């Protein structure tokens, strides 16, 4: 039993150092993100009814299915166990309007995985956030259902209502901030409750899975840029708190912009990325033709990822500039 080199029962590993590894690997981290989305899922059920689970389920199922089919066709290893397809499905489902058409949801899922991820070569190689690619496609293809919002706490098919952002944009009405915070307003399935988003998002930061700099930069940006307009004219423009809690801002900050693959690698890059998104969101909300700009802002900044990595290298230890 002693000489382990001579005992065939021992499987001796000879890989070079380091010989130990941190507790996190991609797979665990991805499933942690799935877990972190549960509070938002619960808020969706609370405010828009149990049927929202159907929309999310269809979205997840078609994302997973699309990934499997593409992997099989391309004769690649099926890596669905890494959870990234499930995350895309959950994210897409949660940013659709309540009671969104199930066939359209399925189409969005296929686009998200096929065009958003797999055409680039699969996980790790995509430039744009897949879930947002899916949503952008749906927004362009089905503009009417994509902007039909049911009212929170009302039964499914009946009442349609303005979101706080469109109410502000088209009628200059500011929503009650406590309703905005807890999510008792109309909006996308999982985006309305800032409270639920914060629970999941802060958990991910505490667990060291997402980098705090991206949401911090976005929030800082919204406070600064939103604050400037608010100070200029508090009657016409909403306060920064409204900007933070309305629409998909926090959901985007914690779950979309923090996507490992499509956010910058360097710390400076992450700050620029987050501030850039916030600036664009505020401009779209105040001057743009659309009530909400989080999706386009993130997709737009995604495009600059490689550029930011190139021009914001970390400071070399001991280097004197």
């Amino acid at each position, binding site marked *: *039993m*002693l*000489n*382990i*080199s001579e005992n065939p*029962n*021992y*499987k*001796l*590993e*000879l*890989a*070079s*150092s*380091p*010989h*130990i*590894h*941190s*507790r*996190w*690997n*991609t*797979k*665990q*981290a991805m499933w942690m993100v799935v877990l972190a989305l549960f509070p938002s899922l619960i808020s969706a059920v609370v405010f828009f009814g149990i049927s929202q689970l159907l929309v999310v389920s269809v979205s997840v199922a078609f994302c997973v299915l699309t990934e499997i089919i593409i992997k099989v066709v391309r004769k690649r290893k099926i*890596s669905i166990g*890494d959870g990234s397809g499930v995350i895309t499905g959950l994210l897409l489902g949660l940013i659709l309007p309540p009671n969104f058409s199930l066939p359209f949801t399925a189409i969005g899922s296929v686009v998200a995985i096929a065009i958003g991820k797999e055409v680039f070569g*699969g*996980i*790790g*190689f995509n430039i744009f956030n897949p879930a947002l690619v899916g949503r952008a496609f749906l927004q362009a293809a089905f503009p009417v259902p994509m902007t039909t919002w049911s009212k929170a706490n009302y039964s499914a098919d009946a009442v349609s209502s303005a979101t706080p952002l469109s109410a502000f944009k088209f009628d200059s009405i500011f929503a009650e901030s406590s309703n905005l915070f807890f999510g008792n307003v109309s909006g996308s399935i999982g985006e309305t409750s800032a409270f639920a988003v914060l629970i999941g998002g802060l958990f991910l930061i505490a667990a060291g899975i997402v*980098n705090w700099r991206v949401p911090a930069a976005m929030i800082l940006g919204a406070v600064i840029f939103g604050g400037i307009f608010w100070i200029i004219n508090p009657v016409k423009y909403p306060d920064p708190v409204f900007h933070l809690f309305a629409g998909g801002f926090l959901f985007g900050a914690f779950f979309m912009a923090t996507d*490992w*693959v*499509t*956010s*910058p*690698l*360097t*710390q400076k890059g*992450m700050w620029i990325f987050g501030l850039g998104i916030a600036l664009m969101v505020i401009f779209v909300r105040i001057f743009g033709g659309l009530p909400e700009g989080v999706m386009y802002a993130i997709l737009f900044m995604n495009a600059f*990822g490689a550029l930011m990595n190139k021009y914001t*290298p*970390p*400071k*070399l*230890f*001991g*280097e*004197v500039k």
Partner: protein
Amino acid sequence: MKLLTKIKSFKGGVHPKESKELTEHLGFEIMPTPQMVIIPLSQHIGKPSIAVIKKKDEVKTGQIIAEADGFVSVPIHASVSGIVTEIHREPNVAGSPIEAIVIKSNEQKETISFTQMNPSIITPDQIRERVKEAGIVGQGGAAFPTFIKLTPQAEKKIDYVILNGCECEPYLTRDYRLMIDQTEEVLGGLKLMMKALCVEKGAIGVEDNKPEAILMLKEYVKKYPGISVEVLKTKYPQGAEKMLIKAVNGKEVPPGKLPLDVGVVVQNIGTAVAIYDAVIKGEPQITAALTVSGRGIMNPKNLIVKVGTPLSEVLEYCGGVTNDAVKVVVGGPMMGVAQYDFSAPIMKATSGILVLTESEVNSHPETPCLKCGKCIEVCPLGLVPTKIARYSQLEKYEEAENSNITVCMECGTCTFTCPGNIPLVQWIRLGKKRVLKLQKEKLTA
């Protein structure tokens, strides 16, 4: 207010599970002299030593059996008394087999030692000479001949000697035990180094996970004016020279430069003890203090072992390995070398033997890079590991060079952290070798 004072450290780094509880409470045990020792002729960085004995010669413990060859080299002494049976290539813990002297012990007790010196009247030259003839090499891993680091250069003013008591590698508790059990030798050794370099200021940097050692040192250090105990944050690689200097006195060693360039000499705890033993007690470096640990060894221990003892005998002395052992490492888990031949001997600078089980190794299949940026966040030297590893993989050596691949000290922090289990430091190590080779070719061309 005390809470608000920031504990000294550096930027980046990781905190692996310490696993020091396996051996930290155990004092050193002296392992009995083995039947046979294998003493490699190269236990240091630099030219291998030249054997001065022949097959069948009788040698005594402490006798010189190999002389230094050139400046960057050291003499080697017999660690046991006995008969030289072979001088040939033997397996080695650092990698490929190297020339070694095999001595069969005859269990004679007679030893050869140096004269004992009085620390109060000794001169810097005498210290250096003794450190050289005792064959002392650095105990921090690189095994650089110590007397060279104690030789001041005219153009570089040294004003600070820092003793590295971080022991930031998980599992290892050798330096910790030396600081507690041989506090006098540790500080005495540091004092001798300061004297050799004509330096007034000395410090011992210790991570804050070793409160007992800090307490002991702080008590003893009162007798040594000019020496301070610096409590540092427990973080890997706090014990890397550049990180240690940054934490202790705030200076950053520029890329491609040495501690000497900022006026600092860094030495290991084990080296200080070896210097004290050589100068004050007259003993050459023929033993190694080391930690045998990991969840794959039956009885983890802190041991004092004769240089040349085969690994297999040390493992046997510690009760053998468990059934779920998968890896045997010489050194720490972050930078040590995995072993394939257990007849390889313990060397002067061996600090530990780890027997790791599957759950400790925690290996997972590799995935593509997900651009999470964690390797950049933890790299203590401000490199972009994922990028330079990729350049190395694609054999784009010029780009790798421009991205400072040669600055990497191979601490492994990036690979430890990578959620995709990409062997980043392994690729970088390979690329670094190629880049250095290409640079050399360019110089000679």
